[in-house]
């Protein structure tokens, strides 16, 4: 009987401990907020920009301060190496405190630098938190589009050598005529 009572007591303690917050006085951390993203899929041509928004919601009763949102990009193709700094010049955003039951929207602008399939996600961190919360994945398909005339420079790149070539031919013609 005493063994049964001990088991019941131990079970109750376990339930109470796991249901209670880690600490009533501990600072609110990124684990207590929710992240949603819009859109969740995107298509882009290589070199083209695309953007998306992330909403950070605080369902709790306490405001969540000092959140840092960080953008990351993962290639799903093992041969494609991603340098996230090339994709976005502003990958880290320091958030104002998110009010209780409130939310804040973050806008991200990204340039598709490589072609292939990628997952773009936003992670939230705070100074005292033990975990980092990652948001939902934005699946991006980047297609390669070859431009024959990047930036419209082709006419200049062709015209100048042609003009010089005409001068070369004219000088040679003149020389032959004189000789």
């Amino acid at each position, binding site marked *: 009987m005493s063994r049964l009572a001990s088991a019941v007591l131990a079970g109750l303690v376990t339930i109470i401990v796991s249901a209670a917050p880690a600490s009533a006085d501990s600072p609110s951390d990124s684990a207590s907020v929710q992240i949603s993203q819009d859109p969740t899929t995107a298509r882009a041509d290589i070199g083209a920009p695309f953007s998306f928004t992330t909403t950070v919601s605080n369902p709790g009763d306490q405001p969540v301060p000092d959140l840092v949102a960080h953008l990351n990009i993962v290639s799903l193709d093992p041969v494609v190496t991603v340098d996230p700094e*090339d994709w976005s010049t502003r990958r880290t955003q320091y958030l104002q405190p998110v009010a209780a039951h409130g939310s804040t929207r973050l806008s991200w602008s990204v340039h598709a630098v490589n072609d292939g399939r990628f997952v773009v996600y936003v992670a939230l961190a705070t100074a005292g938190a033990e975990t980092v919360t990652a948001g939902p994945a934005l699946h991006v398909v980047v297609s390669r589009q070859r431009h024959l005339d990047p*930036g419209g*420079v082709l006419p200049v790149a062709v015209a*100048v*050598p042609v003009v010089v070539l005409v001068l*070369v031919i004219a*000088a040679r013609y003149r*020389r032959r005529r004189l000789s």
Partner: protein
Amino acid sequence: MTRLRVIAAQELRDLWLTGRGLPLMLAYAVLLSVTSYLVASNQALNFLEQREAVSLTVQVAIGVAALLVLVTSADAISGERERGTLEWLLLTPTPRWVLLAGKGLAAMSLWLVAYVVSVPYIWYLARGTGVLGRALVAGLCVGTLIALFLCSLGLAISTVAGSNRVALAVSFFVLLAVFFPTQLPASAQGGGIGDLLLRVDPVTAGLQYLGLLLITGHSAGEDIDWLLGPVVLAVLAAAAALVVGARMSLRPGRSA
């Protein structure tokens, strides 16, 4: 002055009407076309910011044009000597430094024409950036200083070199030496000695000034001290070339 004009006019005719001036410009234009195309491709991908693209194109235009000037000036005297035409030149009733100056002006014309050829590329890449004017003016000033320095060096080497091959080889070595500091890693460029090396080398100092002006957006006078080295060395090299040229002889090492 009239003699200098006559000599320069003859050298210019030789270079541009019957010589290799125009074929060299054709090769130069093709190279700039390829460079501009690649720069525009990278710009479309946002790898290169537009002002960086302009700066890169100006620097390539100056670097390659300076190479052409150096090769032409290095061939000026030693080439004539090997072709057996220097004797006729020395028989003309003209001071030898004037002969050298005339050849120098012809070699410098390569830089000026090359710069004119590069203007459409710079104009096209710099549209809308607000740096077109300063890119053209600063490119002309810095390029003229670098070209004058290398031209004078080439003429001096050509005057004293035993053969045309030696003159060209030594000139190329000098060219590599003056371009070397531009390739130094950033860590080696710091500190007193590294900074001094960058400022003394006319090519590095000139290109550094252009970068600060076009990419960083500094005013023209803010980093003008970077041009001190190129100005001093260009003037010294020109004076040295004229002094060496005054002692030009049919066979190097023998006074006339």
